[in-house]
């Protein structure tokens, strides 16, 4: 038919460049959230503090927040190092010892579904009022995401490349270092990003009890004194810190993975 042969004439539409749109869309959403926040803060004073009050609170005593953030960071990063380090070692061993893999997966799953808040008091009873319970909770939180990601990354290896290695009798160590480990790096970094956030959350939740220092303790303290501004500054400080930590991992990832 003649009509169907006719191409629809497209008028060139003026569009925003996609890159700009990419930035504009979230910025707009943030602005809407800000407006909503401010509306609630002005009409229901007991629910949210206005942003101005947050800024004033932070600027009135930045040292207080840095001190507490430092305590949380210490627990979170130590826990991250221990938890994800142990997870990596176990993931490597699990590649070679299937029995080990069969043994750790259920235990790790159980650990993962156990609410951390429930472990925390028990750890405080066991280790006392010091950083150890918080480090342990952060380590447990970081352990699982790293274990699962590293195991999945290390387990899969390109069969045909493996044939090339085996045909020239490459040693198991060479196969691990030159094939398996580099191939698993993307998944290990994905695990690290999840693990470092989980460690932060773990440390903060653990600090709800058994300590007077840390972002978690700051939040609890603010609750006691009904200090909404302090509570929300603490929350924003921890969120921005987690974001920065992920950014740090991404930077290392970009430096290491260049393919």
């Amino acid at each position: 038919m003649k009509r169907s042969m006719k191409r629809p004439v497209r008028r060139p539409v003026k569009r925003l460049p996609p890159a700009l749109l990419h930035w504009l869309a979230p910025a707009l959403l943030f602005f809407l959230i800000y407006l909503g926040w401010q509306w609630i803060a002005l009409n229901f004073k007991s629910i949210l503090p206005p942003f101005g009050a947050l800024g004033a609170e932070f600027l009135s005593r930045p040292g207080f927040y840095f001190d507490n953030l430092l305590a949380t960071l210490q627990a979170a990063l130590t826990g991250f190092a221990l938890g994800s380090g142990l997870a990596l070692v176990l993931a490597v061993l699990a590649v070679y010892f299937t029995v080990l893999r069969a043994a750790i997966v259920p235990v790790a799953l159980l650990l993962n579904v156990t609410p951390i808040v429930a472990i925390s008091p028990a750890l405080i009873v066991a280790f006392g009022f010091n950083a150890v319970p918080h480090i342990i909770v952060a380590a447990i939180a970081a352990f699982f995401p790293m274990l699962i990601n590293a195991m999945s990354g290390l387990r899969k290896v390109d069969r045909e490349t493996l044939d090339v290695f085996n045909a020239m009798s490459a040693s198991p160590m060479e196969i691990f270092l030159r094939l398996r480990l580099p191939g698993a790096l993307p998944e290990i970094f994905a695990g690290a990003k999840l693990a470092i956030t989980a460690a932060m959350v773990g440390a903060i939740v653990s600090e709800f009890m058994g300590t007077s220092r840390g972002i978690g303790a700051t939040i609890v303290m603010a609750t006691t004194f009904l200090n909404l501004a302090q509570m929300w500054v603490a929350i924003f400080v921890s969120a921005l810190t987690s974001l920065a930590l992920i950014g740090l991992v991404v930077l290392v990832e970009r430096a290491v993975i260049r393919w």
Partner: protein
Amino acid sequence: MPSDRIEIRDLSKTFDRDGQSVLALTGVNTSFARGEFVTLFGPSGCGKSTLLRLLAGLERQSTGEIRLFGQTPAEASRLKNIAWVPQSPGLLPWASLRANVRLSERLNRRADRAPDRRRTPEDADEVLRDLGLEDFAEARPAQLSGGMRQRAAIARAFVQGAELMLMDEPFSALDELTRDAVRLRLLQVWEKHRKTVIFVTHSAAEAVMLSDRVVVMTPRPGRVFREVPIDLPRPRTPDVLDSPAFDAKLREVKHVLRAGWEDAP
């Protein structure tokens, strides 16, 4: 047993699949000369890959014996004297092309010090040049086309300099035009080095074009049906490949394959 030949005697391989035994290869007896380009040709499932993997020492045979210039596959592999070219290129995505083709220098270093070593490694840059990859030595595999990656896999095998090169359908994932170009490259490089090659394909044209001998195999169970010598002159210039003699050989190989089908149970 003369040590300048590849000897295969009474070879068979049974796989165990879900408790059932699968006879993948049976009663294979043949022998190839040093410097020969041999093609294993036949339909899917006739045991071509299995035979190649047995030769590489990647699998153990159920019965029979293999001697690669006097050595077992395990011994030859320990000396890095077997180069394997898989169906997918099997390159390391994180390594440059040059690092990839020099892989053999990084692995199994003990073989380099063995008193009975037999390999003659080739210069990576020269092999890259012969395969038309010299401008991409620093590129990573992801930046290359499929045909270039496959050429890189072949380059890696030539750089290793093993006496025996085993290639399992290395071009089967390429489109027809690319395939043709890469085959010609392989021919040129091989005619320069004259290493013993055992090449698996299910393309009759590829088999005739490349080889000195086509080993026609049949399935269920996999076995060697007949061997067809390809006595076309070398180098296999475009003139040779367009000649009536080439077409006659192609017809002969296809005919033997059909006879193999009729012969099969």
